[in-house]
């Protein structure tokens, strides 16, 4: 230890104090932490609901709750996880925290708008909470008409909540697009951007283009319920299937709002922890944009059995397959990136590998659902449930967890317990596969989704799945404990514990209020790992051999 102990330089966490300095902060990093706290609470609530759902399905008949309560549980689980956890999750937490730093900027383009987005997000959350208190909602997170216009549960407040959350999402996306375009440090060209930035950019485009349509759809639903305008009501000359078109026009691209940022994280994790230049930078970057564009043209694949015309079904099926190609290319690129790398199996990398495994399964099972004849059988069964959990949880959530573990030292300046982190990761991986792997078989055997009870032949697989949910729950419990422990008693992290070359690691951990005391050197690109040895890192966190290597 050095003899002279200097007071640690002020960072964004301790620069100012008091709850006001947090609730009125304009610092993108603090806003990210505000989101993190809120989203963690929502994830906990949604997760507990998932555990209750699985518990109820342990046996046929009523185990724990009746049909009405069960219907509310799965609706809330879906709505909370989608609107309050997975859509905002990566962009609002990691995007907010990292984006300006990765561009060498001091903040996002519109800091006040950024804070406003958080408040709008919380307002949306309050509406959801109000809905839960006043009778909850039992329509499923898709709010399909005419059921949603007829049920006497609290639909209006929940839909308004989702509408408001949409605004938060739009404003965040808008902020990010402008930030990426206008606030890059001179010298950071588009092709020198880390792939996480590209993926956030593609995500922001979808947020901005798709969310307004969801907004107007939900608004129509609200007006339909309040005034009975009959837009979606067959009794009054309306059409419930039109609602589905409107809804999926947003909600299918929304799936890519959820997965694209996760893909961006994986690009960062695999390059850093394999100490390897990304394979096919442009292919990975442009496939994000490709996915974003094609995602707008495939919404009808949610409606293959809704009675839409064969022509529409054919077109949507065809286009759906072409979302698969860029996703596949990304996976191949990531795997090839590891070739002749220098791979460390630490926790973030384990999550990245879990992502590769689970997301591949999620992607391949998507092919089954894109194939028209097979989809007819699998539509609205547990196969779908398993498929989207593999993509959303096996994909996005694994990437999110990997990202949290990767950037935790940067965000808080503390290291977590690596041993317990690996145990938790293992439990989550195994628990996830037990829970949802079994549901593929359940689904193709014919088990419909959204059933609180079922015919006896499905019982063994349901019990197996419920058992998996306990393993999964144990994994998350351990994670909560060691993460909180690290905040209190964790070892101090250096500025660059992973020897990463992206720019956020050039500033201290945690970063100072305006991100950089000394501006980043810009002597190397984010993935120039072939120019520096993985273990030679100076105490200040800068890779030692870099300057001479780059000249």
């Amino acid at each position, binding site marked *: 230890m050095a003899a002279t102990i200097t007071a640690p330089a002020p960072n964004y966490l301790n620069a100012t104090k008091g709850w006001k300095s947090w609730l009125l902060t304009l610092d993108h990093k603090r806003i990210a932490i505000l989101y993190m706290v809120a989203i963690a609470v929502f994830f906990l609530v949604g997760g507990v609901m998932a555990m209750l759902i699985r518990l109820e399905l342990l046996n046929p008949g009523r185990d724990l709750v009746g*049909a009405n309560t069960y*219907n509310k549980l799965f609706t809330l689980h879906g709505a909370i996880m989608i609107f309050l956890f997975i859509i905002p999750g990566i962009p609002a937490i990691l995007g907010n925290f990292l984006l300006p730093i990765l561009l060498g900027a001091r903040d996002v383009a519109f800091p006040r708008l950024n804070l406003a987005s958080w408040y709008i997000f919380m307002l949306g959350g309050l509406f959801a909470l109000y809905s839960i208190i006043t009778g909850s909602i039992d*329509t499923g997170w898709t709010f*399909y008409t*005419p*059921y949603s216009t*007829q049920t*006497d549960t609290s639909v209006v407040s929940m839909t308004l909540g989702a509408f408001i959350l949409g605004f938060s999402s739009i404003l965040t996306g808008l902020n990010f697009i402008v930030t990426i375009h206008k606030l890059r440090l001179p010298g950071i060209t588009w092709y020198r951007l880390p792939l996480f930035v590209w993926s956030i950019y593609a995500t922001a485009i979808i947020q901005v283009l798709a969310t307004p349509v969801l907004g107007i759809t939900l608004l129509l639903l609200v007006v339909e319920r309040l005034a009975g305008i009959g837009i979606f009501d067959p009794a009054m000359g309306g059409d*419930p299937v039109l609602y589905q078109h409107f809804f999926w026009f947003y909600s299918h691209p929304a799936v890519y709002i959820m997965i694209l940022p996760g893909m961006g994280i994986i690009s960062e994790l695999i390059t850093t922890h394999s100490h*390897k230049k*990304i*394979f096919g*930078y442009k292919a990975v970057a442009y496939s994000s944009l490709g996915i974003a564009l094609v995602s707008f043209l495939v919404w009808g694949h949610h409606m293959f*059995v*809704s*009675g839409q015309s064969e022509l529409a*079904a054919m077109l949507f099926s*065809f286009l759906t397959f072409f979302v698969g*190609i860029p996703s*596949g290319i990304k*996976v*191949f690129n990531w*795997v090839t990136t*590891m*070739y*002749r*790398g*220098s*791979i*460390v*199996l630490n926790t973030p990398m384990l999550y990245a590998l879990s992502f590769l*495994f689970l997301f*591949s399964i999620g992607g*391949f*099972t998507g*092919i*089954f659902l*894109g*194939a*028209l*004849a097979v989809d*007819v*059988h699998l*539509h*609205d069964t547990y196969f779908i449930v398993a498929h989207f959990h593999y993509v959303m949880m096996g994909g996005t959530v694994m990437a999110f967890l990997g990202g949290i573990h990767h950037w935790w030292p940067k965000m808080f300046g503390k290291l977590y317990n690596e041993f317990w982190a690996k145990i938790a990761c293992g439990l989550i991986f195994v628990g996830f596969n037990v829970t949802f792997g079994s549901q*593929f*078989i359940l689904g*193709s*055997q*014919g088990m*419909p*989704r*959204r059933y*609180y*009870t079922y*015919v006896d032949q499905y019982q063994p697989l349901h019990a197996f799945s419920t058992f998996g949910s306990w393993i999964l729950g144990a994994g998350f419990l351990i994670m909560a404990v060691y993460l909180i422990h690290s905040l209190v008693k964790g070892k101090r992290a250096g500025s660059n514990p992973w020897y990463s070359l992206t720019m956020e690691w050039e500033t201290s951990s945690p970063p100072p209020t305006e991100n950089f005391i000394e501006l980043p050197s810009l002597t190397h690109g984010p993935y120039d790992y*072939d120019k520096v*040895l*993985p*273990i030679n890192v100076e105490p200040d966190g800068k890779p030692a051999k870099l300057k001479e290597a780059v000249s």
Partner: protein
Amino acid sequence: MDTTGTLFFPPGGSTYAGDVDSLFYFIYYASAIMFALVIGATIFFIIRYRRRQQTGKTYGKDHNFALEVTWTVIPTILILIVFVWGFRSYMRMNVVPRDAMEVKVTGQKWFWSFAYGSGASSVNELVVPVGQPVKLLMSSRDVIHSFFIPNFRMKMDVLPNRYTITWFEATRTGEFDLFCTEYCGQGHSEMIGRVKVLGEREFSEWLDAGSGPGQGESLVDYGRRLYTSRACNTCHSIDGSANVGPTFKGIFGRQEAMVAGGFITVDENYIRESILQPQAKVVAGYQPVMPTYQGILKDRDIDALIAFMKSLSNE
């Protein structure tokens, strides 16, 4: 025709089930091979290129045209095969053969009813002949439902404002599950019916017999049969427990408080009215969700149900 089922599928029972299964397994094995390659390569790289103490610089080449073209073209070809195959099979499932026998399917909260050309009808039990195409003309009385027979690999949404049409041809006799797969509220998970595939002769006998009481069957027994076959049991118990609707146990002669206020003694006329106009007088504590049975139950069916309820009160 397989009758045992596989890991992924229940035994098939329709003409196009085999085709769907084949496509499923084609995708399954193609995916499995590619998945094995991806994961195999990953595991190999992890072991072979793990970080050691003394390690050189990592490989700097970041593209390989031949490789990238290969992994773009091969999956594209595979998915085009899947697309064409899937679409052709889908058309086969959607184009109804000319000689198909038509059955009118009505979905409502929370049971299925079927009307046959001959005037026969049934509830929650679709009876069809083996080896003959059956066209289903479907509509809903309330919200969206979806008609799913796993063994036939057949599914179609049932909408309130238009007819949807699908068909199947059963290849063997037997009984199969029939599920509702579009979430439709409280009774969604119990909106389960059966599909009974009969031989041609048995089917025409069934049609002729209509749905009246069987030979020598008492009115009470017939009512008991209707209680399950007309799906009263979805919402009304006979063991005294409250469900979506009041229990039938001891219902006849009971004083019930009404939602609109006041009391009513349950008698023949009240039961009849509640079956035909369920919303007219609703028992307090229950939602007005029961659909009308107008046109589904004939007079003697209602008589039988009343007799059955009386028998439950006399016990």
